[in-house]
């Protein structure tokens, strides 16, 4: 093989994981969480920094925790606690909401494989 052949080969090998990452992986870990509150205000918070957030809603305060690249509802002043039971969200497009308190969290970044989710 000549030098040019090696160059092509190296390019191909380098490109392979990039292409794989771009086109094949689905639900890759997300980079941030988009929080929407009752007033419709959107806040994007990176998942890289561990922290607690308190979001005010009509019923009271929903507490959201970010830890180790994932996000969850720790508590919310609703009766069903569906949001808390949803547990940790870490992949792009993972979503849950406390409807009574009108707070939603959606993981963004990563590979968003779907345009919209029907549930």
């Amino acid at each position, binding site marked *: 093989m*000549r030098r*040019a*052949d090696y*160059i*092509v080969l190296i*390019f*191909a090998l380098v*490109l392979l994981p*990039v*292409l794989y990452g*771009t*086109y094949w992986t*689905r639900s890759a870990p997300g980079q941030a969480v*988009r929080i*929407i509150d*009752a007033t*419709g205000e*959107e806040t994007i918070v990176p998942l890289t920094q561990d922290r607690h957030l308190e979001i005010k809603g009509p019923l009271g305060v929903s507490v959201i925790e970010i830890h180790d690249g994932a996000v969850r509802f720790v508590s919310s002043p*609703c*009766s*069903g606690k*569906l949001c808390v*039971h*949803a*547990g940790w*969200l870490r992949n792009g*497009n*993972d*979503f*849950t*909401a406390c*409807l*009574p308190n*009108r707070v*939603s969290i*959606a993981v963004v970044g990563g590979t968003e*494989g*779907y*345009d*919209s*989710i*029907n*549930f």
Partner: protein
Amino acid sequence: MHNVCLTLLRRAIAPLAAALLIALPYGCARAPEQVYKTQFFTLGTVVDVSLWGVDNQRAADAVKTVENVLNEVHRRWHAWEPSELTRINAGLAAGQAVTISEDESQVLQQAKSLAEQSEELFNPAIGKLIGLWGFHSSDVPKGPPPPQADIDRLLAAQASMADLTIDATTIRSRNPAVEIDLGAVAKGYGVDLAIDALRKMGIRNAIVNAGGGLHAIGKHGNRPWRIGIREPTHASGIIASVNLRDDEAVHTSGNYERFYDYQGRRYHHIIDPRSGYPSSTAISATVIHRDGALADAAATAIMIAGPQKWTEVARRMGVSQVMMIGADKKVYMTPAMAQRIHFEISPAPEVVTSEPL
């Protein structure tokens, strides 16, 4: 001579191929058009709107329009907060003829005919029963389930949309037990209205998604809109995906949307009008159709019908693209749905495909 040519060719090919390989994915990703996505709360759920190829200013106007349309549906048709519907219900309960607008008349007539087609499995006249179970509240009830005697009393009253006489301007009821609750069609109807409003603004490519129901028009650039259907036995995850054609609505009814657990049993908000209890033979039902109100009502009726009866209900309602997840965890599908659904879980679930509908 031959050798020289080959060398030249090789020298030219290497950088060319490399440049092509690098440019290819970036070239595709750098399409000038973008998706605009936003979310807000209305109709007691999270609504998300996706628009393709619309500049930010127009997109913001479009989202405002969607919000106004859905808020109007909420104001008119809310089943327990003061609305046009609660006004109508109060009049009907008092035995009066109630004046309605032409739009309202159309919605109520469609609900009546959908109820008839579904053999009353979709029964929007059983508002009292749904209220008895505690689901006429923004908060999820805690239980216990209502006393059997109260359920029996409401079942005996046989509230049905057939008890209503609806013309262009008035509605009357010959059964005081009728209380209209459009919870199983309002989303489908509202989302369709929102899509109509977007079309009138000249928007060609959009999805309006109100939780259990969405309607898509056009495409996402040069590919179809691709949606995920949530896995119904877990709080998150996707069971299947489907590529949508232009002008299609997808509606799912499921036992996981609103429910409470009481003494180890789950009680959810989709009440079987035959038993007066939450339906138990299916976990969820998904219907794809151009008419969102029809898809929404059919999803509810099919979920209540369960594995034994769903094909009959689907045929009568004129829906051919159906996926139902039974309480037995099997996935029941029409051939038209099976063709286009792509499972996103492994192993793929056991599938039972029906006769063509």
